[in-house]
């Protein structure tokens, strides 16, 4: 006879908990923040950090200023680009500070669902391309034209590229048309995915240390150019819309003004933090300065940001909301 009593008690307890948790209405997952946010009653902003160092620099400086000038607590979460849009729309993160252009996501979340609001330009222009190390370009000046790449394919051969030249690609999360490009330009190359940017950088530095030839997918602005000077290989020029069909792309990558995006609710009611993040805008040089401190001098992002903030007061003063 005791068993049913227990079960009833259990159900009652469960019901009580659930009503305590959410007033027993719908539990909307898109309105749930991170459990680590806002500990001890402070105002918290959650920023998405992408895996590359430039993005870390944006976030580090924004974090430093939010914490020291505006009195917020900042949580950072590392998320890949596309999932970050998803997280942003759900309010798991409040802002993405550097986006390289995702038209599908923009249409879905900004225009259709209106859960994400554009946050203006970052001030940095991004460009993706194919690069060879400058020492190689000096030896073979004509290597920087795609028409001559086949001639040099044997230089770039590795065990992974199976008899063809190796075109080193990075993380699968990055925007890339390289497989289609190799195919459509009839190049004797094999795209080898390093799988992550960290792996790609490590490989490039190893090649550079021995002055070996390599051909890689890379992008600007990037701190690595300061350590390993690289020269871009000219691809057929970019024209508006030439990359519309992913399978038929046969042109270079565009120059993309990098953009910021905020969660729609946060943009509306985020107070000073939202206003600050909308105004946040700096140059390629600024970003590189911080990135180099982080990736090359191995400063923690927080220390690097502090160093930059101390020497560029006039730049960031204008970002602060009055």
């Amino acid at each position, binding site marked *: 006879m005791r068993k049913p009593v227990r079960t009833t008690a259990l159900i009652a307890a469960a019901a009580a908990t*659930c009503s305590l*948790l*959410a007033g027993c209405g*719908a*539990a*909307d*997952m*898109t309105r*749930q*923040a*991170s*459990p*680590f946010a806002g*500990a*001890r009653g402070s105002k918290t902003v959650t920023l998405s*950090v992408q*895996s590359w*160092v430039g993005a*870390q620099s944006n976030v580090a400086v924004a974090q430093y200023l939010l914490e020291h000038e505006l009195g917020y607590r900042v*949580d*950072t*979460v*590392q*998320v*890949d680009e*596309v*999932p*970050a849009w*998803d*997280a942003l729309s*759900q309010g*798991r*993160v409040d802002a993405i500070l550097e986006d390289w252009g995702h038209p599908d996501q923009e249409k879905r979340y900004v225009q259709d669902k209106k859960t994400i609001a554009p946050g203006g330009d970052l001030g940095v222009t991004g460009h993706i391309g194919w690069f060879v190390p400058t020492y190689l370009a000096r030896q073979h000046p004509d290597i920087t034209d795609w028409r001559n790449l086949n001639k040099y394919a044997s230089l770039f051969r*590795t*065990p*992974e590229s*199976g008899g063809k030249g190796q075109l*080193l690609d990075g*993380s*699968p*999360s990055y925007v890339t048309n390289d497989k289609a490009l190799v195919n459509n330009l009839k190049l004797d190359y094999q795209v*080898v*995915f*390093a*799988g*992550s*940017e*960290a*792996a*790609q*950088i*490590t*490989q490039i530095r*190893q090649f550079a*240390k*021995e002055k070996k030839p390599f051909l890689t997918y890379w992008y600007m602005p990037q701190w690595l150019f300061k350590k390993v000077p690289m020269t871009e290989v000219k691809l057929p020029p970019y024209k508006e819309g030439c990359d519309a069909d992913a399978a038929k792309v046969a042109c270079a990558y565009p120059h993309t003004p990098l953009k910021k995006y905020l969660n729609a609710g946060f943009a509306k009611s985020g107070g000073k933090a939202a206003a600050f993040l909308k105004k946040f805008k700096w140059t390629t040089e600024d970003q590189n300065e911080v990135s180099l401190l*982080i*990736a090359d001098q*191995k400063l*923690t992002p927080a220390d690097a940001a502090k160093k930059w903030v101390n020497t560029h007061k006039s730049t960031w003063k204008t970002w602060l909301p009055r």
Partner: protein
Amino acid sequence: MATTAASASRPALSVPSVLRHRAAHKLLVLAVLAAVLVPFAAARWSSGSWPQALTVDLSKPLGSASNWIIDNRDSHPLFLYFFGYISEAVVVSVRAVYLFLLAAGWAGVTALGAAVAWRVAGARLALGTAAALLACAVLGMWVPTMQTLALMVVAVLASVVVGALLGLAAGLSDRMDRALRPVLDTMQVLPAFAYLLPVVLVFGIGVPAAVLATVVYAAPPMARLTALGLRGADKEVLEAVDSLGATARQRLLTARLPLARKELLLGLNQTIMMALSMAVIASVIGAGGLGDRVYQALASVDVGAALAAGIPIVLLAVVLDRVTAAAGERLGQERHGVRALPYAAAAAVAVAAAALAARLAGRTDWPAGWTAGIAEPVDRAVDWMTAHLYSGVPYVGGTADWAGHFTTWVLDPVRSGLQWLPWWSVLLIVAALAWLIGTWRTALTAACAMAAIGVLGVWKPSLDTLSQVLAAVAVTLVLGFATGIAAARSDRFERLLRPVLDVFQTMPQFVYLIPVVALFGVGRAPAVAAAVVYALPAVVRITAQGLRQVDPAALESARSLGATGAQQLRQVQLPLARPALLLAVNQGVVLVLAVVIIGGLVGGGALGYDVVFGLAQGDLATGLVAGIAIVCLGLTLDRVTQPTRRRTGKGA
């Protein structure tokens, strides 16, 4: 025919002549089957790679499923009233634990950890626990450690509850046991990476998804060991309880559960270890905490910083492992109950006092000046290593050259060999291997799983992954058996080896990835290298244990017959330790597969890359198909290497 099938379904004995006899029978049956089916299949479809006609394209339905979920996530009742509550409950409980830990401060948490360790495992481990927690703080990782701990506490509790309930069901009912066993077996061999995508799609990036993925990963060992404990209870004791007129419930609570204490604690131990390893992998989907620090450090190729976050994970793992293991050993030796209440009161007072003292001193956060950076020296060491070993070492060549040779001379031939084999012959080989070592059931499962890979249309990448697994397993076994034999023969060597094995086994796999790239370049070779490093400890451990458990009397008699050391090893120890060696092979294969998949992050390509791609691009079609293929591959490999007796769990 009928007699063959009947005799084959019985487990094979280890008497060689009988085995050879049975093996011949099994192979004969397969050969007859093949002779009938193969010409038909080869004529109907093509020979060679998996025929296009037999594949099913899932990308359309999966794509629309993914779109439906994203469009309805904030409006459909299923999400609002079911998943929403689960997610909410996770957030609230993780938050509660986290706030409690923060409120206790570093002094309070350290005191609490030490008190619990003292109670269940003795003074030495209490000291160790305190030291480990303080070390996390000294490394400047206090807050991330607490985040990981909060997540772990919730995930482990949930896993234990879920696992114990399932285990109870399987332990008490034969039908449940038959239904659950294959499911649990399968979950045990799944690489953690394969779980992430579906969970993310439903719950979004963040802690709820991470906790749920962890529960799915960590609950099976608890369920399995609970069932094992309940089923293994001493028949005579149960009969005695019955004769005293106990009801079924009394019997469960007073006899069966207490008798299964050891297994329950072992289950807890395994669950904790698996939860911790998953907590790191889950950083890919926004779990935060220590795993996220490791992941972020890897983005700037900072091995030192990754290690600074990896060490607390290792410390947590070692402490939790030792404390729960010691608790299991002390069970039954000691009487509890009498002292428990005053002890708990005293401990609570001590913890509160420590927390309060720190709070009064204004030091709930670990003081910033008390941290020590290890990132820099480690980075310098890694730089030196890669600078001097990468290439151009006189005579032996650099690591990059080895990697190149390994790729060209081992990985490439194995891969092209596997991909050259006609598809039906791969199925036949799989079936034959699985049948030789197990029963016709395992053979059928293995062949079906392999066929499923073909149907999904990922035959080629799967064989690519398989080639990497085979190469890595071969290397692991050679090194592992050699080290294991050495460890079994010398106590001193084993004592030296033990902490090393502990560290390598609990270190998050991500931390390995960058040094292996620095040493071996980008490609399949570093993925194989990371897999070898990860799987080696388990293989060494099982081998050494197996050799040590060989009956001393058998060894003594061999020695008295004048056998030399090598003869003893070859003719007595190794044959007698055969079950352990087979278990080592099986474990090696499962662990290697898990890391070869993660190797997609360092250019391993194949299925691992597809999963990474799916996660990174939110592309369910690519990611999920690859995930299922990994599951099938894991299942196949497990069945092919699994002797009839089952193992109890991963690692340990």
